[in-house]
C-alpha cells in the first residue's frame, strides 16, 4: 500500500462502512437506487467541490461558489424562462461568465496581493447580490430542452437512474484527474500550494496559474449551477446558501490539506458521497427533529473525521515501521 494514498483508502473504507451500517438498519437502503441517488442528488455539490479542490490545493479558498451557482441559476431562469433564449445559447454564456467572474477574483488576488478568503467572500456577496437584482423571486424554467435532459439517461438494475447530471459529473471528474496529474497546470497548482515563493523562483507562471485556478473554480461553479437548474427546473437567488462550506468540508474530508499542496480529486468525490450518505441516513431514519438533525450531522462529521485521523496516523506509522 502506498502511503500517499492511505487517507484515500481510509476515507473510501469509511464510506463503505457507513453504507453497510445503513443497509443493515433500513429496508431499501442497500440498493443501487440509493447509490445512484447519491450521485444525482450531489452532482452539483461534487462539481463545485472539485473546483474547490484545485483552489484549496493551491493554498487558496473560494467562498463564492454557492452564490455563483445561484447567480447562474437565476441567469438561466431569466434568459431561458423569461427572455425565451434557447438553453444551448445560454449555457456557453453563463459558463464563460462564471469563468470570467473567477478570473477576476484571481486577478485581484494575484495582482493586488489580497487574501483569497476575503476576495471570494466579497465575490459571494456580489454574486448573490446580482442574482437578487436580476430577480428576487424564484424563476421557473420551462423548456423542452430541459424535459429532454430530464429524460436523458438510463435505468440500471434496481430502479437506479443514471441521468445527465451523473454523466456530466463523470466527465468533470475525468477531466479534473487529467488536469491534476497529467498537465503542467496541475503541477503548477500543487507547486503554488507547496510554497508560492519557491514556486515563483522555480519559474512557475504565478499570475497565469492563480487566475486559471479561480477561473476553473468559477467555471465549474457555473456548470454546477446549470446542473442545479436541471435538478430544480428553476433559478432562485437564495439557492445553495452555505454550499461553500459543504464543498470545503467535502474537500477536506476527502483528505486535501487546507494549507495547500496536497490532495486528490477522487478524495473530494468520496468526501461528497460521505456528506450525502450522512444526509440519506438521517432522512431514512426520519425520527430526528430539526435540532437533533443538526447535532447528529455534527456528531457523525466528528466521528468520521476523528476516525480518519486515527486510521491515517496509524497507517502512516505502519509505513514508517516497514
Amino acid at each position, binding site marked *: 500500500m502506498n502511503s500517499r494514498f492511505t487517507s484515500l483508502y481510509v476515507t473510501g473504507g469509511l464510506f463503505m462502512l457507513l453504507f453497510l451500517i445503513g443497509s443493515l438498519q433500513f429496508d431499501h437502503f442497500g440498493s443501487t437506487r440509493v447509490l445512484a441517488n447519491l450521485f444525482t442528488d450531489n452532482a452539483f455539490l461534487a462539481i463545485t467541490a472539485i473546483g474547490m479542490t484545485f483552489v484549496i490545493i493551491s493554498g487558496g479558498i473560494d467562498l463564492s461558489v454557492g452564490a455563483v451557482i445561484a447567480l447562474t441559476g437565476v441567469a438561466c431562469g431569466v434568459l431561458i424562462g423569461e427572455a425565451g433564449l434557447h438553453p444551448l445559447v445560454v449555457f456557453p454564456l453563463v459558463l464563460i461568465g462564471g469563468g470570467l467572474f473567477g478570473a477576476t477574483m484571481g486577478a485581484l488576488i494575484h*495582482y493586488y496581493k*489580497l487574501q483569497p478568503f476575503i476576495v471570494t467572500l466579497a465575490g*459571494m456577496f456580489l454574486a448573490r447580490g446580482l442574482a437578487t437584482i436580476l430577480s*428576487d423571486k424564484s424563476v421557473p424554467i420551462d423548456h423542452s430542452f430541459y424535459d429532454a435532459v430530464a429524460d436523458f439517461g438510463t435505468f440500471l438494475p434496481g430502479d437506479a437512474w443514471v441521468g445527465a447530471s451523473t454523466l456530466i459529473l463523470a466527465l468533470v471528474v475525468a477531466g479534473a484527474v487529467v488536469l491534476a496529474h497529467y498537465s503542467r497546470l496541475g503541477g503548477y497548482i500543487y507547486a503554488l500550494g507547496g510554497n508560492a515563493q519557491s514556486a515563483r523562483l522555480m519559474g512557475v507562471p504565478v499570475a497565469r496559474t492563480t487566475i486559471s485556478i479561480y477561473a476553473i473554480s468559477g467555471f465549474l461553479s457555473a456548470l454546477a449551477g446549470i446542473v442545479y437548474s436541471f435538478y430544480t427546473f428553476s433559478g432562485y437567488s437564495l439557492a445553495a446558501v452555505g454550499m461553500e462550506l459543504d464543498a470545503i468540508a467535502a474537500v477536506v*474530508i476527502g483528505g486535501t490539506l487546507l494549507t495547500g499542496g496536497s490532495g486528490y480529486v477522487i478524495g473530494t468525490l468520496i468526501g461528497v458521497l460521505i456528506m450525502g450518505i450522512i444526509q440519506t441516513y438521517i432522512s431514512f431514519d426520519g425520527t430526528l427533529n430539526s435540532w437533533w*438533525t443538526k447535532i447528529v450531522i455534527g456528531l457523525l462529521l466528528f466521528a468520521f473525521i476523528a476516525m480518519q485521523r486515527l486510521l491515517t496516523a496509524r497507517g502512516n506509522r505502519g509505513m514508517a515501521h516497514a
Partner: protein
Amino acid sequence: MNNLPPAAAKEQPVSPAGPRGLLPPLNGRYLWPLLGLVLLLAINLVLSPEFFQVKLVDGRLYGSLIDVLNRSAPVALLAIGMTLVIATGGIDLSVGATMAIAGAVCANMLVGGVDSIFLVVAGGMAIGILIGAVNGSLVSFLGIQPIVATLILMVAGRGIAQLINAGQIVTFQNEAFTFIGTGSVFGVPFPILLVLMVFAAIQLLMRKTALGLFVESVGCNAGASHYLGVNARAVKMMVYCIAGLCAALAGMIAAADIQGSDANNAGLWLELDAILAVVIGGASLMGGRFSLVLSLVGVLIIQCLSTTIIMSGVPPKYNLVIKSLVVVFVLLLQSPRFQAQMGALIALAKSKSNKSVGERAEA
C-alpha cells in the same frame, strides 16, 4: 565590525515591525484601514448630516453614531477573539453558534428561576469557555484542521442551542440581565463599555505578558516554535477558549438586547462578519502579526456600512452588491500596488488639467 555604520542605522527609523506598546503608532499599517473608515463616514455626512447628531435622550446618548458603536458590539467581541485565533493560523467558524448557545443557556436559567444575575452571566461565560475548549482540543490534540474542527460545532452548536430552547424563542423579563444589552452607564450604552473592557483586558493580557509574542510565534512558524519550547498546544487551546468566551459575551448582549434567546438566528453568519473585520484590519489568515485595534476598526467599517445602507433608503435588494463593492474597495486601499496606481492616476489627471489650464492661458 558591522556592515552598516551605526549612523546609517539611525537614519532609517522605519520599523516594519508591529506595535509593542499598548497603543499603536500611526504608521502605514494603521493609516489605510482608518482611511477606509473615514471615507465611509464622509459618505454619510453627504447622505445625511443627522448621522452625526448625538443627543441625550432619557439620560442616554442617542444617535446614529452611537448606534453604529452599539450595534457593532457583538461582532466586535467576536472579532477580538477571532483575531487571536487567526493570529495562530486558525479560524473559528463556531462563534455564531456559540452566541446562540450562551444566549439559550442564560435565557433558560432566567426563565428557570435563577435569581442571581452573577450566576447567569457566569453560566453563560462558562459555556463559552467550554465550547472554546472543545474546539481547542480538536485543533491542538486531535490535529484536525481548524476550519473543519470548528465547522462541527458550527453545525451542531445551533442544534444544541435549539435543543436547549426546545425550538422556541425563549423570552425572559429580567431588568439586570437586560441591562447587558440595553443599559447605559453615564449615557454610554453598556455593550460599548463591555467591548472596551474586554478589549483592554485582552490587550493587557497579550502585550503585558509574553502571550502575544507566543501567539504570533506559533502563527508565523509552528515548527520553529516547537523547537523553541513554546507550548503551541496550550497557546492554541487558550485562543480558542478566549474566542469562546468572547462569543458567549456577544451572545448575552444579543439575547439581552431582544430580551429573548433566538437559537436559530442569534449570531447567524456573524462568524463571517468577524473574520471579514479581522482581515479588513489587515491581518493575514495564515497567522502571524495581529492587532486588536485594527480588527476593531474593521468591525466599525462593516457596521458603519450596514447602517449607512439602511439609512440611505436604497432598496434592500442592492444591499449585498453595495457591501461587496465597498469591501473590495477598502481592501484595495491597503494594497501597495493599488496605492501606486491611484497615485499615478492622480498625477496624470493633475498634469493634464495643468496642461489644459496652460493651453487655455495661451489661447
